[in-house]
């Protein structure tokens, strides 16, 4: 009779013990599964947050001029954990085929000019990211989406619509034409002081992509560069790497990771608590199940000695004990998965209903959770069975049988 046949008969015919052990495994499995779901979802959210929170280092020319060298941008991109950069440059330009909004009659050159601001991405930095400006129509400028964004009052004055061409003339005589891809609005256009010269009025702020800007101003540098990282924990290290590039220049370096820390704090707490809970669950399970198995194994000492006297190897006896417990654990995993699938959602919502932790509340059961449960459960079974059977396997079967025979 092979070890699994003996194991199957044992747990089928010793029903009371099997049911009790199954319940222990079931409670343990359910708790591990819930703990794992919380922990792994929190960890995954934390990891994804590293990039999504837009943690960055901002380099800004102190005078607001385009003095940051162009080649620095590509050098920053080669640094470890730098995911992208957002280059920002601005310059006044003359309208080629449209009229700027003019409130006062300015005699200077700037009276008929506009300010063009070049961005790699208007969504993540600048006035749009700070929600000073809102797009009424069209799309923002992004790395893969070039174009021109104009103010709604400027568009109204000139009868512009999305898709219309717009031409600029630089002081050096260069001209560039682009297509309007978005129309924005600030809400404070009419509250501006009439003394503000035209080029600095909100209506005359025009956002363009870098290709158009370069056509007008050639290899001029940038007024600001935002360097994005996917490793917010090492932001200071990245700053140390960047500083030598701009040493001696009049450039301010600031870091922006407030949002990351605000969102990370509750997650870190959840990760710490759920890790601690998992450890406690595992330790408690090992102790309780080991005690239970040790208690039962004392009554099986004679049985084991008889098996040894029949020529059954100690390895086979260990496998039998493992199979008995592991079979019940496997059944408990099925039960825990069913229960978790049915009730985990409600349980999670009741625990994590706050806005910051809503992602965890929506956590579902996945293969990773199940694999973790199987791994941790197997470790518990292995330790508990090992502890309970080691004394019996080490004992001399002759002594055991002698005691039994009186």
């Amino acid at each position, binding site marked *: *009779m092979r070890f699994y046949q*003996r194991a199957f*008969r*044992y747990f089928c*015919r*010793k029903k009371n013990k099997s049911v009790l052990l199954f319940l222990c495994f079931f409670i343990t499995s359910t708790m591990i599964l819930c703990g794992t779901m919380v922990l792994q979802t929190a960890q995954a959210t934390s990891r994804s947050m590293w990039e999504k929170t837009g943690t960055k280092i901002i380099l800004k020319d102190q005078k607001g001029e385009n003095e940051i060298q162009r080649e620095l941008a590509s050098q920053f991109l080669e640094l470890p954990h730098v995911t992208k950069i957002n280059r920002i440059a601005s310059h006044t330009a003359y309208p080629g085929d449209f009229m700027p909004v003019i409130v006062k009659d300015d005699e200077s050159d700037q009276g008929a000019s506009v300010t063009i601001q070049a961005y790699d991405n208007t969504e993540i930095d600048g006035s749009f990211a700070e929600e000073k400006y809102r797009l009424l129509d069209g799309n923002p400028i992004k790395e893969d989406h070039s174009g021109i964004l104009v103010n709604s009052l400027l568009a109204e004055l000139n009868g512009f619509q999305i898709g219309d061409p717009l031409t600029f003339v630089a002081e050096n005589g260069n001209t560039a034409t682009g297509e309007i891809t978005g129309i924005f609005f600030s809400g404070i256009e009419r509250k501006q002081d009439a003394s503000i010269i035209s080029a600095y009025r909100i209506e005359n702020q025009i956002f363009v992509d870098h290709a158009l800007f370069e056509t007008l101003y050639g290899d001029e540098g940038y007024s600001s560069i935002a360097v994005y990282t996917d490793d917010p924990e090492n932001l200071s290290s990245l700053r140390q790497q960047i500083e030598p590039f701009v040493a001696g220049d009049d450039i301010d370096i600031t870091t922006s990771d407030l949002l990351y820390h605000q969102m990370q704090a509750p997650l870190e707490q959840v990760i710490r608590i759920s890790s601690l809970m998992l450890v406690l669950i595992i330790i408690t399970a090992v102790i309780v199940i080991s005690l239970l198995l040790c208690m039962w194994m004392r009554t099986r000492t*004679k*049985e084991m000695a*008889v*098996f*040894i*006297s*029949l*020529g*059954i*190897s*100690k390895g086979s006896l260990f496998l039998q004990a493992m199979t008995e417990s592991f079979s019940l654990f496997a059944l408990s995993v099925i039960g825990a998965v069913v229960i978790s699938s049915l009730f985990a959602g409600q349980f999670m919502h009741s625990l994590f209903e706050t806005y910051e932790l809503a992602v965890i509340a929506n956590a579902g059961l996945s293969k990773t959770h199940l694999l973790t449960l199987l791994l941790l459960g197997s470790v518990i079974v292995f330790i508990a069975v090992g502890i309970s059977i080691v004394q019996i396997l080490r004992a*001399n*079967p*002759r002594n055991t*049988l*002698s005691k*039994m*025979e009186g």
Partner: protein
Amino acid sequence: MILEAKNVSYFYKAQKDKLILENVNYGFEPGKMYALLGPSGSGKTTLLSLLAGLDIPTKGEILYDGNPITARDLTEHRKHHISLVFQSYNLIDYLTVVENVKLGGQKTPEPILDKMGIGKEFWKRNVLQLSGGQQQRVAIARALASDANVLLADEPTGNLDEATAWDVIDLLKRIAHEEGKCVIVVTHSKELAGSVDIAIRMDQLGK
């Protein structure tokens, strides 16, 4: 000689000054039934355990078919060379009669149980539902299910009434004489010892 004790001495590790067996030399032949006779503490069960490979002698060696049993794994010796019958039957309580016999070896259990006088109606029952005599017969059937040439029995009639005890002794004799096995029985009953082929008093064996 199928089984032989050669210069065997044994003492417990905790009591090195107290020899249980001292320089025991004896050979057992197939087809005969032996009785190891002696008072409690004379070392009968210890010798049986050494012959069974449940323990190893402090000095000397046990030979099976001329080869030391320690030359190979003792588990192999217990599995293929010897089979054991105990005073308290030692059947496995979560297995049926047939399953208990199957534990003994590869032989089909039903003909052996038939031969032991265990009717078909008992085969699927739990062993705890049998009488003491029936349980001992099942234990002997389990011992016969293996191919072992040596059957070792430690006071097999100790828990049985007189009539059943003689039935079991007759059964063991038949096994020795008809199947050619070497049967070694430990007993302190002089009557039982008188009925076997060779009775060995422990004090004759060297201690």
